[in-house]
């Protein structure tokens, strides 16, 4: 019985895995194409995150933190350390949640809704960011030479039924594009903000 909502956080994680994609030609203007190239060329990566959840029915936001790691082509792990230890793994088509010594599995091909998320995930993970254009209205912005932003707004159901927008903010450090902040806004007013700190941030 699968009734749980869609795993948008994963999409965020996948986007977050752009974090240290080196940009081949730093001199060039930042563009979505360059971002895609960087994405396609990236190797294994690792970062820490802090997440704040704003839930409509709760009076206060929920804080959590943990690690993100990515291994090409499609192995992605979000390991939450506090307040509870839980791990969410994407392995190919399979989503695995481990918590309290139990493991739950979910296949991304299971339903049309999940499949839509899976398509986005794969597009991001495989560096085919342009494919996202089919499902999302994409807006790329660069703020000067150092900072950039990407906004994804789903075009149609089933994604649009649950998701308002995903916003990514990043910067460029030594020819490497880093994601600093990821925001997911849900249709019900709930939102997640993930702040990512990279190993390169601490000298």
């Amino acid at each position, binding site marked *: 019985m699968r009734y*749980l909502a869609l*795993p948008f956080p994963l999409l965020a994680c996948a986007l977050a895995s752009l974090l240290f994609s080196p940009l081949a030609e730093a001199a060039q203007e930042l563009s979505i194409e360059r971002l895609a190239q960087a994405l396609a060329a990236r190797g294994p990566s690792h970062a820490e995150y802090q997440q704040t959840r704003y839930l409509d029915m709760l009076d206060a936001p929920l804080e959590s933190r943990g690690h993100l790691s990515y291994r090409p082509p499609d192995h992605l792990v979000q390991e939450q350390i506090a*307040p509870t230890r839980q791990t*969410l793994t994407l392995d190919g088509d399979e989503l695995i949640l481990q918590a309290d010594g139990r493991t739950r599995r979910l*296949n991304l091909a299971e339903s049309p809704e999940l499949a839509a998320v899976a398509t986005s995930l794969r597009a991001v993970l495989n560096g085919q960011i342009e494919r996202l254009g089919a499902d999302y209205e994409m807006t790329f912005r660069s703020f000067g030479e150092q900072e950039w932003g990407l906004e994804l707004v789903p075009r149609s159901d089933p994604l649009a039924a649950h998701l308002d927008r995903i916003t990514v903010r990043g910067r460029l450090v030594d020819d490497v594009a880093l994601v600093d902040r990821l925001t997911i806004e849900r249709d019900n007013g709930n939102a997640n903000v993930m702040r990512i700190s990279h190993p390169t941030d601490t000298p």
Partner: protein
Amino acid sequence: MSPRRRSFLALALWIGTLALAVAIIGQTRFTADMSAFLPATPTEAQRLLVEQLQQGGISRTFLIGIEGGTADGRAAASEALKMRLRDEPGFATVQNGGSEDLERARQHLFAHRYLLSPAVDTAHFSREGLTTAIGASIQRLNSPWGDMMADLFPRDPTGEMLQLLDDDDGPSRCCGVWASTNGERTLLIAQAAASGADTDALARANDRIHATFEDIKTELGQTLRLTVAGSPAFAIAARDTIRSEVTGFSAASLLLVTLVLLAAYRSIRVLLAGLLPVASGVVIGIAAVSLGFDQVHGITIGFGTALMGEAIDYSIYFFVQSRQLDQADVVQRHWVRHYWPTIRLGLMTSLIGFAALLFSGFPGLMQIGTYAMTGLVTAALVTRYILPLVGSRLPRGDIAGFGERLAPVLHGLRRLRVPALLAGAVALLIVVAGHDGLWRGTLSGLVPIDPALEAAETRLREDLGSASPRYLIVVKGADRETALQRTERLTPILDRLVENGIVAGFHTPTDLLPSTATQRARQAALPTADTLRARLEVALTDLPVSTDRLDGFVEDVERQRAADPIDLETLRGTPLWLAVAGQLPSDPREGQLAMVTLKETDTEQPIDAAAVRKAIAPVDSATLVDMLGESNRLYRHYLQTTLTVALIGAGAIVLLLFAVQRSPRRTLRTLLPIAIAILLVLAGHRLVGGGLTLLHLIGLLLTVAVGSNYALFFQPGGRDEPMDARTLASLTLATATTVSAFGVLSLSAVPILQAIGAVVAPGALAAFLLAATFARDPSSRGSSPPSGAMPPGRESSP
């Protein structure tokens, strides 16, 4: 009474009986289902097992797989097949894991979560309990998975739904329907409306699945492939194989026998007359079975007629042995005086042998026994009283020359007595040394299984994640409520067994359908809306959520507090019904049954049944049933019974022969060839074959039946002349027909036919040759009394 009048009477009686039998057959119900080859049942657990095998949910559930085409095409075909089959009266339910089914199941669970969740009690809804449960839910919200549960939180802040969904793995899904893990196959299950014992109805349902799929395939224009497995598919395939093989191989046997006889008689009329005893036996045999049993199984006729092969021998004996005389009444008198007593004795030994079938406990075999015994008696009587009237004057080829040429060869066999005895001794050693593995103690192998179907079954079962349940705990109750209450007492016990690693898990109907008492108790633990609000005010003090956000929760608790408890009918229309109803079979004799299935920790290892039995002992009427173990035990019981009866029969045959022959030496010489033949067959099967089954035992009985005829002819009574050339020829001809007919059967893929063929063909041949080897020496001719006058030395020296 003048001979003419006697003949007329005999003919009138024969024709009258045949007419009556035909009339009875006209009223007879014939069936083709296989359940007759499941044992009738001696104990309660075993009766339940057979019922489950015959009628239970499993026995009428088809497993369906669709492959090929595109993923969307497979999903569309799955949906279309489900929708169309659901409208057919032949199906009770069809499921494919479609999203609307899941949604319906989810809605049912959600709407009744406070009646279903085992967590619901007064403590859970106390202030502290609410703080703990809601606090835990908020923790879950704050996890990588959290967003996926956020929608549920406002109405289910205590997390009952998660409890209910926790253990449910279910099959994988792809594109909105059940699919194999690799996504290459969509899966459905379809339960036929008919009883699992009604193979005809199952076959119709099977045809509907195939036909509907063909339509859908054409409409979709994709190259999709359909696989249908599940117990009913096996039953249908087994029946079809048996039907076609019984027909085919019986026809082949008949053709061979006809050719052999035609070569010998060189007359079609004689051939036809020779079939009169068998044909009469078939007709009267069917009528007798029809009178004794509700319905006649098709297999009985195909298979029982093979057992009646001995009857062909009768007419062979008559036609060959009475060749030399031309006058009908002289023929009759001579043949009746010289040969009939031997045949009659042979008939009696056969009847004793076949009587073992009547005690086998398998209704199918009991039918076959009845059929073969009635048929043989009829055939013998027709040979004795009718054939001399209609057949004596028929011109026919004489095979006395053949017998004369054969005589020296067979005579030469007498030199092989010592080797024959040695061979018998070696065979005896093999059988005694290997008696452990001689008989196969499992039920498997009684029905033919198509390996391709078996592979498909394994694949689909794995895909659906449904291991075939071997271990069941059965609970009985006068009504459903009692049975459910007792079953609920098992849950904590089984939880402990899972913790201790004795079982891996269990599936109980009370998860989805708790007893009314339990549901009422849970309702009683739910506070009223006002109380709940007041408790929440306090409980939520330290949590980041306020009471007014949880109005939906308060509403739902209030609604379910006052709702009617769920019963089986509430589940109808949800996919949950199939699972629950299948575990709650009601039984006219036992009242209500509830079944809990256990999952083994290791499929290779049987579970510790003693530990489970001990643990569940406190629960009234709870019994552990090991389906595989039970069916094997059941089968061994029948095998044992039949073996015992067969041995008693063997003893009876010895006594009978001794009573008639009045000479221990002659009886010994009659029995020795049969005994050695049986030992050789047993040893042969021990060395090259798998274990012997009940069916082989029946083959052995038949071997004794035909073998005893040969041996009796080779050991004529004291004052009779030793065997003449015609008798020898008739025996050889009879052996040839038996060996060829059963040799053909041994090539069949149907275990029933193959087993009989592989025993009777070599057994009959060995019995014939050994009977010749141990034939009474011609030099004892005229000596009277023969046995006493025979020098001991001549007996054993070659």
